[in-house]
């Protein structure tokens, strides 16, 4: 497959995944900011800025962290390259460039998402409703994934689409966990039983759609260590770091040709660390240090995929 085509496919799904994750992250932050025990709603809105690493960009254009401004910044702001608006705009452009390689249903899904988004932007977020908007983004992402899964041939095009999804998802799960854990530690006891703590971890599980999994796997109160275990090592949870790495480990070797030796090795090593890892090791290392190391590794893998497949010289 042409490297440019692979790159367009990879970014198409990566950007859709990023839009979905952004919506999930904001949904949680916004809900938490309205909780009665939160002293200042603005404090909760700092988390998304930290998770996405766009705190500086935001502060360069705003004097203060305000709930409404942060929501706009992440959703419909044309000047934030990481806004949902820009993610979906670019995803659609990538889709347009590879129309011959994706199915009509995939194209229609991403194209109508873009057309609806432009309409939503015209009316503004207040008119549409923030919660309704986050649900809409998640649904459009589900639809695109479903159209992809249900219609495209199982070839390299499919694989690069999936690789984009899991790279982005692994990165996001690690970031959201890291920031929530840091905030949790900042505000109080990391694994205590007070209401605030409960809601915080409860919200995090919801944001990654893993609340039901937690309930089913652990018959104990929601606490930080178990949440970390579930989202890092959980074999059954589709957004855990382990699941993402497992998928990448299956996808990379299936790509035609002999390229990508380094990428395959990096993925396999990282998967083995998770597959045979345990919570004790994670906590001994320190969750923040462990996740920082993971983020470095996933970014190294992404860079290697780019060098070995997407811009082959």
């Amino acid at each position, binding site marked *: *497959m042409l490297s*440019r085509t692979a790159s367009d496919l990879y970014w198409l799904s990566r950007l859709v995944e990023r839009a979905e994750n952004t919506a999930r992250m904001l949904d949680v932050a916004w809900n938490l900011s309205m909780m009665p025990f939160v002293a200042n709603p603005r404090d909760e809105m700092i988390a998304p800025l930290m998770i996405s690493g766009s705190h500086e960009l935001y502060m360069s254009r705003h004097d203060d962290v305000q709930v409404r401004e942060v929501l706009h910044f992440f959703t419909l702001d044309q000047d934030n390259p990481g806004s949902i608006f820009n993610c979906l705009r670019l995803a659609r452009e990538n889709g347009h460039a590879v*129309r011959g390689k994706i199915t009509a249903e995939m194209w229609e899904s991403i194209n109508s998402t873009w057309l609806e988004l432009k309409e939503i932007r015209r009316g503004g977020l207040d008119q549409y409703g923030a919660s309704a908007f986050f649900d809409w983004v998640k649904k459009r992402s589900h639809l695109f994934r479903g159209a992809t899964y249900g219609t495209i041939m199982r070839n390299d095009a499919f694989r690069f689409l999936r690789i984009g999804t899991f790279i982005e998802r692994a990165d996001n799960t690690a970031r959201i966990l890291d920031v929530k854990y840091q905030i949790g530690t900042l505000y109080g006891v990391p694994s205590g039983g007070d209401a605030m703590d409960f809601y915080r971890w409860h919200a995090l599980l919801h944001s990654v759609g893993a609340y039901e999994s937690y309930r089913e796997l652990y018959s104990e109160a929601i606490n930080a260590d178990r949440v970390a275990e579930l989202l890092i090592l959980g074999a059954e949870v589709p957004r855990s770091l382990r699941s993402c790495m497992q998928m990448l480990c299956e996808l990379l070797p299936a790509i035609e040709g002999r*390229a990508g030796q380094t990428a395959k090795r990096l993925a396999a090593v990282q998967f083995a660390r998770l597959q045979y890892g345990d919570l004790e090791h994670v906590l001994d290392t320190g969750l923040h240090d462990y996740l920082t190391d993971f983020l470095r590794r996933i970014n190294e893998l992404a860079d290697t995929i780019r060098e070995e*497949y*997407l811009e082959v010289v």
Partner: protein
Amino acid sequence: MQSITPPAVSGFDEMFAREGAVRPHYSSYHGWLLGQSKELLHRKRQEAELLFHRVGITFNVYGEESGAERLIPFDVVPRIIPEQEWRHLEQGTAQRVRALNQFLDDIYHGQEIIRAGRIPADQIYGNAHYQPCMQDVDLPNQVYSHVSGVDLIRDGEGTWYVLEDNLRTPSGVSYMIENRRVMMRLFPELFAGQSVAPVEHYPSLLLDTLQHSSAVPYPTVVLLTPGRFNSAYFEHAFLAQQMGIELVEGADLFVKDGFVYMRTTAGPQRVDVIYRRIDDDFLDPLAFNPDSMLGVPGLLSVYRQGKVVLANAIGSGVGDDKSIYPYVPEMIRFYLGEEPILENVPTRLCRRPEDLQYVLEHLPELVVKEVHGAGGYGMLVGPAASREEIESFRQRLRARPDNYIAQPTLSLSTCPIFVEQGIAPRHIDLRPFVLSDGRAPRMVPGGLTRVAMNAGSLVVNSSQGGGTKDTWVVEAPSC
């Protein structure tokens, strides 16, 4: 019941003879048409638009807001050509393309035709499309124009003429194919009723032609596009997909150790044939326009070594220039020893003082074109122009006479189309496509019929709002 506006008395209409009688090859269709309601045709046309939008057959128009995508208007009434007449056109266009390919080979080698005094040397050397870098480069099968589009029109008497040759990157073939697909979906009963020659195998003929143009066994063929902002991008993507080859942009290709490679996820892959839809000037920034971001640095040197095939060849444009056009009948006699089967439109070259004199005196009745122009830009249609337009054109003509040719205003034949009021005549032309690879030229029956959508208009170019319709070559009714 249909309301049918009759054609003008003076012109030639494809469906109706002078006295209003239906021509025999249209009798079956005409009978069917009379039985269709206006509402039904209206609905079918909407359905067609929906289909075109769905497939994404859109056209980017230069000068409009960036990314503006438009449908080329499609008409549901087919243009029908009797099989016997098609044989004549087929032979005539193939003959022309054979001569043009020999001409290009001659021009870039021994230049017999200049030495024989049949074409003045300055017409070649002074031509913007003549490429000195192609001198004495031997091409496989001596083929320059692998894909040629020959524009045909007919005058008031119904006589066919060649209006121009397109030997660079002729476009429109995807509309020929999609028009047929849509017609078969909308009106399957029409195809059951009579034998319409198929055209949908064009991409497989094209692929065969491209493969045959290389000496490499099982060559890797790619289609090189300027990118998705090009007006014909849809067609590039369509043809690449139909042929099962990669659609590449300049940045996807690179030159190394004397060969061209494309960047793939499995590493560099050698490319043997490039069906390029990029103009000569943008192909190689090292050899031509240094600002081109579309091309491949070093491509020309590989090409000159014969390590890659370009279709069409660099420098083919010298054969389709409007200033060379008047000499094509002479080429046919010179290279093939045959008489031209299809006539040229009588053309005056404004570089000749006596022709210029005539043109300046008869501007209101002539069509004047820039010799290097294309797409209907930069031309004067005398009878349709205002006094001011004619005067401003006169000045341009005086300033650079060698930049213009002039032809009588041929009326172009008409064919009925479906409009709001019912069925009405509009002017049309025809562009058949000829494939050359050293064997006998091949064509699919028919081609692209372009329509001037406004009553009386003679401009059929899609960049100027022209539309298209399906073109049927049908066996003569057995009676």
